[in-house]
């Protein structure tokens, strides 16, 4: 019984730290301005919406991966799935939760767009470097 209680408390703490970690990843990219090219390709003008996420992730799959952003992107992807579940399951209990989850998912979409921007810049740098060689 004690082990079950400790397990439940640890899992709750784990989820709390994971959500905060993902929020810190998203927050660290919120000040990064998107390039005009990424704005055009993703259709994000000034503010991203929750619906942009799936499209940006599809575009990310077309770009060569960068090792350092893969883990962060995976973590935010899990966080986005949690938010989707929360929106579907809990929104009818507390309607205010719907707008909150939508805002959070929009932040995830912006994070993905910033990652796309970095990948494009990185690929371009690599091409320039190869051309110089």
């Amino acid at each position, binding site marked *: 019984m004690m082990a079950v209680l400790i*397990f439940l408390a640890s899992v709750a703490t784990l989820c709390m730290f*994971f959500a905060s970690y993902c929020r810190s990843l998203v927050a660290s990219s919120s000040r990064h301005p998107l390039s005009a090219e990424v704005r055009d390709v993703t259709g994000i003008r000034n503010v991203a919406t929750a619906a942009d996420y799936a499209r940006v992730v599809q575009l990310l799959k077309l770009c060569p991966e960068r090792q350092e952003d893969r883990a962060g992107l995976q973590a935010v992807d899990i966080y986005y799935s949690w938010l989707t579940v929360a929106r579907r399951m809990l929104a009818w209990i507390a309607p205010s939760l719907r707008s909150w989850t939508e805002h959070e998912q929009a932040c995830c979409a912006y994070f993905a767009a910033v990652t796309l921007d970095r990948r494009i810049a990185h690929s371009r740098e690599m091409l320039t470097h190869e051309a110089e060689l």
Partner: protein
Amino acid sequence: MPGPIDLSIWFLGTAFELLFVVCSLARKSFLTYLFLNLYLLISIAVSTGRFVFLQSYGQGSSQYRYFYYYSDALLTLTLFCALISLYSRVFGELRTGEYVKWGAVFLLLGTAGFSYAVVAQSAERLSTDFAYELSQNLYFVGLVLTYILWGAVLKLRETRTRLVQIILSLGLYFSGYAASYALMNFSGRFSIIRYICPVLGCFLPLSWSLTILRNSEESRLVPAQLVAVPR
């Protein structure tokens, strides 16, 4: 001798620990995060030592077991110091360094005293039992301290991205460890559970390395975005 999966996770963990030290040196942050680097350097040395003992004496030998438990206690103590160094950085601007230092010493002595009281009854193998008990209790204290530190980060509206992400990774590590230990207690028959703790051991240095690589020391985040409900 551990199986190929155990060995692979072990080597991967040590490689990630080395990666963090290299990243810190490359990003000129070695001294800024001195205690985190010391913890991982000691961990690399301990891993090497354990491997040598394992090869020389075998997993069931008393030499390996003594080395394992004493080195585990040493590692937990170093991790405790690393956590306290994060406290010093978070509370640094409030000039409460002295209080943090004395609080840490008091907590460490208290935990050591409690661990001694628990194992004092058994005269046999007192020192190894003490090392094991101290290690376990310090892990629990570490989890509680990390939780309090995260509360302080939110309250003080900490903006340093690296510091925030390092603390969150530590929180994930401690809570994952506690959850897997509890899981092992009531469902120890599933062999996959025994891999969770070593995998968590790989996660911590990897996550710290990515934090150092992705963000500079000057990177700042908006503190309001860290709390679920903006104040």
